């Protein structure tokens, strides 16, 4: 079949993969599958995938314009030679690119690996070769905009800004290699995850620990992306300074992505050449390019295995079952246990569970910038609570996949709300512990952090109950399918905004009190937080 025809067919497959990423969450939901509704979902799925690609592209562009390109026009750091600034800038940009593409890839790779497009294509009069091409082109379409923009636009802009064609060419090579590494990382993790976690059950503690380790590995790119987004400029500066310090070691040129940083730098400014480092960087860049070629081969063969169904991307594992004993608990505990088990097998859910603690760990960096006053503490609590409050809609959307089944159980709405509130509050409390331990370790106002943090937990619990009540009421009325909450951005935002307002309210009141009557700050803060909690508790108990 002609490549043009395969490209056309891959568009249909791509639409199906984007659609499945949303529609699969509707399965088992209570809404009728009306034609207009399905049509709206299909459009929404395409728009969502496009938005995801555009957002990734915007991030890449932002880092390209703030880290990568300024080095080409000689903007740099005082006391750091310009070629070292380029090494730092290029290295940081490549690290950002690797994390961002891998992060975006991990969001969609799961739906591609688990998608059933091959089952639809297989009975058609298409050869296995054609099918694997269609799947491969579909895979390319998932990443096309960010990959092309990074690969084509930045090297050209770099060549123009630095006035070095050779520099542009070297940056083209380094970006291309990085993109292939990111794709290989994505597909490798997706395959590993599915074969080792999703398809493998098990109840031993060892298996649970293994799952946890795999999940950490899986979500590392997400955290890496999050970290570089927050500290991109500092990272670039650190890389540049580090390069200057370590350049005496010279062997840093052997390490990816520094090797490409040196390559681009010396290609752009041949007058500054250190021939030994240049030789090392050329040798290592060649080695990494060869590795990239192998990675590309791995990615294509992996996709082909999805395309042909040969070789088993997913290899289910069967456990030896000794007994059928189960341990029922109270309903609320049963719900929490089920949610934690599901989260332990889903990287996207797991990352949301870990995000508040990670956010706190990152916020702790600001401790080193001076005294920790009331405004810093309250600001931190607000930031931590915002991230935590993304959790309640997620926890309820966990039910979405089999919401019809859940609705058939004798489950009180308030049991569901209180169980998920309890889990959200515990997650918030864990991030508070991280904050408190850091404060004790750094000897920074830990008594105030403990007092305000503990009290604010009531407000976070109240906000969680508010979000869950709104969502559960909509779900009970059958207004929408729970698993679909992320497909309906307006619904999602309308649910979390009241939650945000609720956690902000005691903070604002405390800040106002601080200027008017600072003796009453904690009293006012506590009164409002506890009132919020009591009000929401009463409202939920009436459900």
């Amino acid at each position, binding site marked *: 079949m002609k490549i043009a025809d395969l490209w056309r067919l891959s568009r249909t497959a791509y639409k199906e993969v984007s659609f499945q990423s949303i529609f699969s969450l509707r399965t*088992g939901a209570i809404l*009728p599958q009306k034609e207009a509704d399905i049509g709206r979902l299909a459009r929404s799925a395409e728009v969502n995938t496009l938005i995801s690609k555009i957002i990734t592209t915007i991030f890449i562009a932002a880092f390209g314009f703030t880290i990568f390109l300024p080095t080409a026009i000689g903007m740099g750091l005082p006391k750091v030679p310009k070629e070292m600034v380029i090494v730092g800038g290029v290295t940081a940009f490549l690290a950002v690119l690797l994390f961002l593409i891998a992060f975006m890839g991990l969001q969609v790779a799961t739906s591609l690996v688990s998608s059933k497009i091959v089952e639809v294509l297989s009975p058609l009069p298409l050869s296995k070769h054609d099918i694997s091409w269609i799947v491969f082109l579909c895979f390319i379409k998932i990443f096309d905009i960010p990959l092309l923009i990074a690969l084509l636009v930045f090297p050209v802009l770099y060549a123009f800004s630095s006035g070095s064609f050779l520099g542009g060419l070297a940056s083209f090579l380094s970006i291309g290699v990085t993109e292939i590494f990111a794709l290989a990382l994505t597909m490798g993790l997706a395959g590993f995850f599915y074969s080792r976690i999703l398809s493998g059950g098990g109840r031993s503690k060892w298996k649970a620990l293994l799952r946890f380790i795999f999940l950490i590995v899986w979500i590392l790119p997400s955290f890496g992306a999050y970290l570089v987004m927050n500290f991109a400029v500092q990272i670039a500066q650190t890389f540049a300074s580090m390069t200057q310090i370590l350049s005496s070691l010279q062997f840093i040129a052997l390490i990816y992505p520094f090797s490409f940083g040196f390559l681009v730098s010396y290609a752009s400014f041949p007058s500054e050449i250190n021939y030994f480092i240049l030789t090392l960087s050329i040798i290592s860049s060649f080695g990494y390019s060869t590795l990239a070629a192998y990675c590309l081969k791995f990615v294509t063969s992996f996709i082909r295995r999805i395309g042909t169904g040969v070789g088993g991307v997913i290899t289910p594992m069967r456990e030896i079952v000794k007994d*059928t004993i189960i341990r*029922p608990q*109270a309903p609320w505990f*049963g719900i929490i246990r*089920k949610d934690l088990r599901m989260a332990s097998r889903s990287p996207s859910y797991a990352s949301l569970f870990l995000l508040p603690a990670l956010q706190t760990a990152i916020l702790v960096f600001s401790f080193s910038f001076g005294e920790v006053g009331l405004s810093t503490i309250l600001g931190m609590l607000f930031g931590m609570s915002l991230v935590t409050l993304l959790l309640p809609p997620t926890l309820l959307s966990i039910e979405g996949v089999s919401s019809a089944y859940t*609705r058939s159980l*004798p489950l009180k709405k308030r049991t569901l709300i209180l169980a998920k509130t309890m889990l959200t509050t515990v997650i918030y409390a864990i991030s508070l512990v991280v904050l408190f331990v850091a404060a004790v370790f750094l000897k920074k106002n830990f008594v105030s952090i403990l007092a305000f943090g503990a009290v604010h937990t009531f407000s976070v619990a109240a906000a969680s109950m508010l979000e869950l009540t709104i969502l559960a009421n909509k779900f009970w009325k059958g207004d929408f399918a729970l698993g679909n909450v992320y497909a309906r951005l307006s619904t999602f935002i309308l649910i979390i905004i009241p939650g945000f307002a609720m956690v902000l309210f005691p903070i604002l009141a405390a800040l106002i009190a601080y200027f008017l009557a600072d003796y009453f700050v904690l009293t006012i803060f506590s009164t409002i937080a506890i009132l919020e909690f009591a009000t929401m508790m009463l409202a939920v108990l009436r459900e």
Partner: protein
Amino acid sequence: MVQQAAVTVEGLVVAYGSFVAVDNLSFTVHPGEVYGLLGPNGAGKTSTIKALIGVLQPRSGKIQVYGMPLSDEVAVKSQIGYVPEEVVLFDSLTPREFFEFIASVRRLEADVVNFRLERLACALDVKQYFDTPIAALSRGNKQKVAITAALLHEPKLLILDEPLIGLDARSSKILKELITFHAKKGGAVIFSTHIMEVAEKLCTRVGIINKGRLVGEGTVEGLRKLVKSAEGSLEDIFLKVTEQEKDMQEIIRALEEGQ
């Protein structure tokens, strides 16, 4: 003394926007009865069942389960064991974890539930999959997990939506026996199926739905009298009652002429 009905449905209307899926449906199921809901695809069987278990909000009508209105949600659902048509469970859980969740929500005692679970797992041959994620199970095995979960609390009323789809011969036979035994013990069963032979053998009474309306109800014998056919199978009766018989003959003739 009049025995209390297991299920009473009066004037049930289920609509999706302007589309009316179930139109003024009324029927009663008594304890000890196996009531078959039959109908062509899209007739409104699943919508009726979803309304019965409180998953769908009817536009109007009255549903009572053992004399309790559906608004008494928790009490009603405690009496029901439900197997959905499309078995979508929590795929990332293993059956053991799924049963633990179900038993927790239903507040079942560990000793009692473990005894029942062992028996059901052996009967339906699901024990070997206990620690395999549900996602990795075949459709038939998922169906067995759903059936086991529906029977864990020994419900008084079983509502099964196409329960035999995907089951192997052994499990199918066991499920049929379970249904019969459940009814003999005084429980009630409502199940929808497309397999007329099964309905004919298992059901005490059947209700035939077409375009959301009940177009025929009674025992198979009673329906035979209704369509004035002394020997017709339930399939023939079904086609007659749903007014598909004439269409069928025309379609078959057209197909034969096209050969």
